């Protein structure tokens, strides 16, 4: 057997053991921190998903693929879900910048501001006028 190959295989074994054993040596204090990070990451992902769905629902409404009644129901449901996610983020001590929470802040109002300028961030869209269907009178 090639001695150089034996040495290189032993180096690979040492590298592998070092990589896989590292978490077992680090202990549980860091693990608690990572668990917190993971929960925050899951909630952030859920928040982004809700925002994206809110934007897409409005885009569907604007391009005539959702009736206004359906859009309002969906929009209200999604905003309620977004509020819940933001509450849970707050409870974890994560304070997202105010603009990013705009969809939640407006949830439950009778007439909601447009957050969905064709995929824009909620903050950007918060300053936009209410949605109008293209080529049609403004929605009642």
């Amino acid at each position, binding site marked *: 057997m090639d001695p150089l190959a034996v040495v290189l295989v032993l180096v690979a074994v040492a590298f592998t053991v070092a990589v*896989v054993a590292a978490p077992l040596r680090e202990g549980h204090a860091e693990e608690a921190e990572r668990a917190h990070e993971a929960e925050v990451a899951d909630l952030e992902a859920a928040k982004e998903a809700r925002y994206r769905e809110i934007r897409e629902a409005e885009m569907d409404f604007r391009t005539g693929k959702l009736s206004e009644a359906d859009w309002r129901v969906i929009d209200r449901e999604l905003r309620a879900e977004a509020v819940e996610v933001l509450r849970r983020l707050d409870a974890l001590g994560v304070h997202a910048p*105010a603009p990013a929470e705009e969809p939640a802040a407006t949830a439950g109002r009778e007439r909601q501001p447009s957050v969905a300028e*064709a995929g824009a961030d909620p903050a*950007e869209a918060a300053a936009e006028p209410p949605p109008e269907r293209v080529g049609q009178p403004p929605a009642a």
Partner: protein
Amino acid sequence: MADLGRGLLFLALAVSVYGIAASIYGARTGQRDWATSGRRAVYALAGLSSAAFALLEVAFLRSDFSFQVVQSHSSTTTPTFYKAAAAWSSQEGSLLLWLWLLSMWSALVLFLTRRRMRDVQPYATAVLLGFATFFAGLLVFKVSPFETFPVPPQEGTGLNPLLRHPSMMIHPPMLYSGYTLWAVPFAFAIGALVVRRVDAEWIVATRRFALAAWFFLGVGILLGARWSYAELGWGGYWAWDPVENASLLPWLTGTAFLHSVMVQEKRGMLKTWNASLILGTGVLAILGTFLVRSGVLDSIHAFGASTVGKEFVGLIAVMIAGSVALVVSRRDTLRSEHRLDSLLSREAMFLANNLVLVGMAFVVFWGTFFPLISEALTGDKQSLGPPWYGQYTVPLALVLVLLSGIGPIIAWRRATPSNARRNFVWPTTLGVVTLVVLLPFGIGHRPAALLMFGFAAFAIGTVVQEFVRGMRARRAMTGEAPPTALVTLVRRNRRRYGGYVIHLGMAVMFIGVAASSAFQHVNVVQLSKGQSTDAGSGYSIRYAGPTSRIDLSNGRVERLVFGAHLIVSKDGKKVGDLRPERGYYPIEGAPFAGAIGRYFDGESTSEIAMIAGPRRDIWTAVTPNLDPTLKIAKEGDATFRAAMTKMPPNQYAAALGTAIRGLVDRYQRAAPPATFRLIVSPLVWWIWTGGLIVIGGGLICLWPAPDLATRRATAGYAARVARDLGRA
């Protein structure tokens, strides 16, 4: 070097087994450090398999014939470009490529999701490492790429000439990337089902990987079709060959999955269907690898006998049994949150699209495995040809193209008459006008093709309408100029508009497929020098004369090439020249082959020639009549056999070179009539163009979104400016 390779593979196997145990132990006991250790085993596996694959590539590039796999799949005359690709032309190399790609994609997805779905991830890690264990086990115990000869041979047998095509550099890694990437959503689906977390989160977390799998598999299929068209010498791009079908199966079910997950994300419906689809797609991806490597079905792709068929059957059986058991045991959790409101809704269209795609997959599956089924039932192995596939896939494809137009513009939940008027008028008009305009051109006798043109025009109309409406909506809100509005619209809605671009590309492709299938002219003729023939569609082809040459590589004869010079004309005007050829590769490692005859005893490949364009392709292949040449070669073999012991080696080699040169030149002077395959095929160019559009759409979908933190900060500043301006 071989010892190192074997050591790395054994270590890869060991770390995979450890990772499975650590992940499951961590998940079951709640000790996250073990689960993290399992995840890190995947990173280590990626490093080890990368090193092993690099070792094999180096062996091929150095033509190190002490490696058995290098000797049997490469040679010193193989161009360097193809030496690198020769690694995955072998069974051993392709299995190592599978392991390497799987480990890289697995490491990437587990790194990106390391802070998410911590309950699902350990099980997903275990499943991914389960695949790795299977492939590493095969490489260690069954088909090692690091087997060596005690005494290295001087020369290799060379790469199969059919594989010496540029797309072969990319085609297999693309297909294997597709196959291995399907393992990612498959593994996360298993994890989600195990922990009963069956909301859309696992779909969102792995969506990009599912898209990438679909994309790479699609690119691989397209490159394979191009290779078939340009290299195999029969003039078609799709032969319903078992190995082609094997790649199409997961692509079809994966396409269905990518559509139906949108219904789950939006409405919480089709959870059982989506879980079943992705589990089925994962099984079909392994089945695809099995068909390529097992040789269980006769295929033009069967480049070598396999010894790993039984192991693959075992893996597939475990995957099917496990998947069915999981879905059945979780049926309560998988219940839909909503019901279908109307059959005239986008949800219903997605469902219909899924049924068509799965129906197509079933047809392809049945046709592919029919030889085995018929053999099992009757003892007689019967194959089903393109006409059988056509009678089912053509109507299904028509419905699919129509649905690809309806889907993007029909309303969610329930379509209303006003919605229909608003969204369907212009695309429908375009489709009908296309039919009416095309009818006078005499294509009514091909109703399926005619309908396909109309449906494709309708689908293209819907995509254009969506872009125009989206752009106008964007302009109404922001006042941007049209080009800016269009770019921003796509940039901010990549999945939606990338998907529309894919629909556009598929419609263009189907136009090409329909036209080239229905209106193709094929002629097989024998021509003498100076003779002409009618090739169809008004084109005339004249055999101007034979051609021949010797191709050298590294100072040695790579192949002898015999061909023809053809002149194409239409209405008396010259359209262009064509030079189809056939290359003959010398047989290697055959000591009893004749000195000259060995140049004709090896593999031969057709090098087609064509004039391609948006309206039609003129495609030609030649089969030269080498009977007189072979007769002379046989006489030459006897002469050189007698001279071998009487002449000094240098003199012998020089005389042999002169003889071969003379033989090749003689063909040009006195070639007998040659046989030509001539094809005039309309709109084939549209297939490749449509494919490129699909690739463009796929890239739009896959392109990473701007960094979240940057976007949030920018949004914060923008809102602050808006507030400050409001106060001023």
